[in-house]
């Protein structure tokens, strides 16, 4: 039995299990001590409590100094005061200090209204700054996906934990000392020159406007206003499960139809679904998987197994930087975003009778790495990108607000065709395990020639960082691994490198939770239950779909018949597959 600790918090008797922090114990009796640097994503085992901001300090009787409640454990007989004069004055003064080294440009800051620093300052009732002086100034660092404005950094170092401990990317760490200390890539080089994968998890947890996405909404407004341009949009599966949050809806509310309606009102010529391209991805990736599997079973020693999914651009950046020697293991299939692009610009444009250069393809993504992916040279034809640019869920929400629309009251509308029809398999791409489940549904039927009765592979679902399951392909055991979060991916990759991996196929998503937890999603402010609700919403949409296997999507069948030929065929290879690069030597030190 776990040992119980008795203590007094604000004159109330409390009993908590040993190991409970003062912050948690206080929460238990309804006392919400304000925090700032503290971050706890319980379901994903991510905890960040450096005790650096000193906002959560409390008085512990008998101790000389105030104690940070986030990482001070309860002890027998402790007497704690969470809001006496000494504590309140200290908190307010510390907050004033933080604000004294922060720009006062809230009115035009991307995070205004969604900023933890702002809301905590409000909560603490700071109305005046008594301490003024020099402010830190840094060059703003613009990368293709992420903007670093370190004048706004409060050194909470959540980004550092995400980048190093969770993602094991190691692009960000604290540099310099004292007042000059700041979180930055090594030698304060630009993010673009570092090992950054643009997963955007740093942006997702940044409490201020120090880390934000590169904004493409102005470009989009210009293109929508240009009568010469045909602007088409694709929306990723995870967006519909989170967009509503920006309009005060419950997390996990599906807003697919309202989103389509909003996009149409914004002036897009056609509103399509990336889920369609996800079905296409399954056709290509599934075929590649079965091909490698068959060759392996036939005794081909050169075949590379396990096959790794390649839908996630953050993950692609990760192995190009960190595991370049394994760049021939992942599937060569492009991500759904990058499959949609060439189909739109080569097939759809022809159907619509417009020239490639007059078509603008925009994607709405839960992701920041997608912004970088659009710009990759291999995804351009004569300098024209297959997907012109990508905007995040948050940017879309801003755009809808700018256009004076209230998402909640919009009517539900359907996607346009032919690139708007999708199956349940395409929908679940947005949650960890979804891609491999979708692939299994198709691969099973193609391999066995039998109908899959129960399409729900429950064993592949969940929030555990690394999961594995064996799927019975009518007598053939297919070992499947799943990792979300790049730190978990690293573990599976190291096993493969060491020859210890037993898997045939592995799905990897860079962000914890998969795309629903992407760096471009509405901020979860450390509440990981939100991610679970988003995932549940996607599985709900899958359940409600008439067709739940990618290869049964009639428009996919038609696309192969009319245009592509067969999966992994010649045209597919040209338009829908890619190759990878060794970027380990690309790190530049100025």
């Amino acid at each position: 039995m776990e040992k119980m600790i008795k203590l007094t918090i604000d004159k109330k008797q409390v009993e908590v299990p040993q190991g409970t922090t003062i912050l948690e114990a206080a929460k238990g009796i309804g006392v919400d001590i304000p925090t700032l640097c503290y971050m706890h994503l319980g379901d994903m085992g991510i905890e960040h409590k450096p005790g650096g901001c000193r906002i959560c300090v409390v008085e512990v009787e008998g101790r000389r100094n105030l104690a940070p409640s986030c990482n001070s454990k309860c002890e027998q007989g402790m007497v704690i005061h969470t809001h006496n004069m000494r504590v309140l004055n200290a908190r307010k003064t510390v907050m004033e200090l933080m604000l004294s080294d922060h720009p006062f440009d809230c009115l035009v800051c991307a995070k205004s209204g969604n900023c933890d620093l702002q809301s905590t300052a409000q909560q603490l009732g700071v109305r005046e700054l008594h301490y003024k002086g020099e402010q830190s100034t840094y060059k703003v660092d613009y990368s293709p996906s992420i903007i670093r404005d370190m004048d706004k950094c409060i050194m909470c170092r959540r980004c550092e934990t995400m980048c190093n401990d969770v993602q094991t990317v190691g692009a960000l760490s604290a540099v310099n000392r004292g007042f000059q200390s700041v979180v930055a890539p090594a030698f304060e080089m630009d993010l673009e020159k570092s090992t950054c994968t643009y997963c955007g998890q740093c942006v997702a947890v940044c409490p201020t406007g120090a880390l934000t996405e590169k904004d493409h909404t102005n470009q989009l407004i210009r293109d929508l206003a240009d009568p010469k341009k045909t602007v088409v949009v694709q929306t990723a599966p995870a967006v519909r499960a989170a967009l509503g949050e920006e309009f005060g809806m419950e997390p996990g509310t599906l807003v697919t139809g309202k989103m389509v309606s909003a996009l149409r009102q914004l002036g897009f010529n056609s509103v399509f679904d990336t889920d369609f391209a996800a079905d296409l991805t399954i056709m290509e990736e599934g075929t590649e998987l079965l091909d490698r599997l068959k060759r392996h079973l036939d005794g081909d020693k050169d075949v590379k197994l396990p096959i790794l999914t390649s839908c996630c651009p953050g993950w692609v950046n990760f192995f190009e930087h960190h595991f370049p020697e394994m760049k021939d293991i992942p599937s060569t299939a492009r991500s759904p975003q990058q499959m949609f692009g060439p189909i739109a610009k080569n097939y759809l444009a022809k159907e619509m009778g417009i020239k490639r250069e007059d078509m603008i393809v925009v994607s709405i993504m839960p992701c920041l790495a997608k912004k970088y992916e659009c710009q990759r040279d291999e995804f351009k034809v004569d300098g024209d990108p297959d997907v012109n640019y990508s905007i995040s869920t948050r940017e879309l929400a801003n755009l809808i607000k700018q256009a004076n629309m209230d998402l909640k009251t919009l009517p539900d509308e359907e996607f346009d065709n032919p690139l708007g029809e999708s199956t349940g398999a395409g929908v679940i791409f947005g949650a960890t395990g979804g891609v491999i489940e979708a692939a299994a549904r198709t691969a099973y039927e193609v391999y066995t020639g039998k109908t899959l009765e129960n399409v729900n592979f429950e064993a592949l679902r969940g929030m555990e960082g690394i999961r594995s399951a064996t799927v019975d392909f009518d007598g053939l055991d297919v070992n499947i691994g799943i990792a979300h979060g790049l730190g978990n991916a690293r573990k599976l990759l190291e096993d493969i490198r060491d020859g210890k991996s037993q898997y045939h196929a592995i799905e990897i998503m860079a962000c914890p939770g998969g795309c629903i937890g992407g760096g471009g999603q509405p901020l979860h402010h450390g509440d990981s239950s939100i991610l679970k609700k988003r995932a549940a919403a996607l599985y709900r949409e899958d359940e409600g779909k008439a067709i739940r296997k990618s290869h049964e999507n009639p428009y996919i069948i038609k696309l192969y018949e009319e245009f592509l030929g067969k999966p992994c065929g010649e045209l597919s290879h040209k338009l829908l597959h890619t190759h990878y690069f060794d970027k380990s030597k690309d790190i530049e030190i100025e």
Partner: protein
Amino acid sequence: MEKYKMHILICGGTGCRASASEAIQNNLQDAIKAKGLEDEVQVVMTGCFGFCEKGPIVKILPDNTFYVEVKPEDAEELIEEHIIKGRKVMRLLYVDPENKETISDSKHMGFYKKQIRIALRNCGFINPENVDEYIARDGYAALGKCLAEMTPQTVIDEIKESGLRGRGGGGFPTGLKWEFAAKNEADQKYVVCNADEGDPGAFMDRSILEGDPHSVLEAMAICGYTMGADKGVIYIRAEYPLAITRLKVAIKQAREYGLLGNDILGSGFNFDVEMRYGAGAFVCGEETALIHSMEGLRGEPTVKPPFPAESGYNGKPTNVNNVETFANIPVIINKGASWFNKIGSEKSKGTKVFALAGKINNVGLIEVPMGTTLREVIYEIGGGIKDGKKFKAVQTGGPSGGCLTEKHLDTPIDFDNLIAAGSMMGSGGMIVMDEDDCMVSMAKFYLEFTVEESCGKCTPCRVGNKRLHELLDKITLGNGTREDLDLLRNLSTVIKDTSLCGLGQTSPNPVLSTLENFYDEYISHVEDHKCAAGQCKALMQYVIDPELCVGCTLCSRNCPVDCIAGERKEAHVIDASKCIKCGACMEKCKFNAISIQ
């Protein structure tokens, strides 16, 4: 040492070496050779004697003659006169500044009279690069005694009974700390020696490592024995090259003698020591920051608990002690806890080494029993204030200590009394200030240091100290207000109250203690815009007395900014708005007509 008739000891500490003590050694050896006395006289380069004010020091045994401020060219005369003819070289002997008496034996000097040397026992006495000399002075006897006669617990009990408290600043009972580390079971444990001495002007640890490195190695091995650790690491500043060299020599010799390594003295106990070099970050003296630095991580502290005794270096139980703490250990084991705990005050046992600096006659390194008063240290050992000026304050505890004044002079120095007086022991820095020192500027100076040395992890230390410094700067520039003094006090209190580690928890001490003891001085800065000590340039004004000025024009010709006007043979006037307060005019005036107001 028997085979020589005479020994000449030369201080080989960093200070004396900088004043050419190596050249003195060479010249002495040449002179000895020239006289054919190689078999009679031995020249030994030792560690620091402590009396740095009078260095380089040369001491001749067996008659204990203490020569001061010796120069390389004095070597020949010393050999000729003292060694051959047996006559002391009077001009190189110490003269008591009070009664002008010449003193040849150091034990009669004011500087040494009140000192008891435990941690510094071998400094200035043995050749630190010769393990035999250490052994000849009971070196490694304590380790032998522990391994042969004592259990780990009895050693811990002995240290606990001795009352020894950590000399790095915290004053935590050493025996208790060892016991915690001993009680935590693990497959690997570590003993760490904190030699990251960082207080400006402090050189206690450096002197011990330079003068008696084996005492630290021996103590680390004893500590390892008590807690079950077979690895020791010395974390030392890379800026201490001489200490590093001597430690390297000492580790090598100890290994050769089987005093480090496997099966030490046939006891079955294994212990070895390696070194890690710090890059000079002050915060790495804090034990958790030090451990992170050793692990190759950013040198910044983490919240305690967990204490290093539970989870330290590489996540294993680790005991971190300061150099001076370790240096006391062998003596406690050899002479017994009951001998040691008779020295000192009620709650602080033994002695403490201080680096005496500032406006004091006898600058140097001293070791006095706990409980010695500041008056004894400053006036008897330190020889009083330089140039007969008036004592104003003494800063103890380094940059984060506090300023003590006249009223504290009779306070017995120990851990608790210093804290009660608003300062702290720290690692033992002691900087004396006289009437020419401005207390606001002094506080500003120390804040400049802590602003520079803050690691930046927690808000109050990173931003708060910066704001404190800015407020102090504003006051010294004459732009301060009374409200600023309230802000200073509140901010100082909050920084102390909320900072993560000892650095921020103590950095406002210079501000708080000067606000407490010299509030009038702050008031005169903010209300009258005057700096009585004349240190705040912005508050000074050079004025020409028309009565005394003869109109010689010398001042105006020497003024670099042409701000002095006046006709020949008529009184001159300084334009205060242009004056840069360089003082050139005052220096040139032959009629004392220019003064500072």
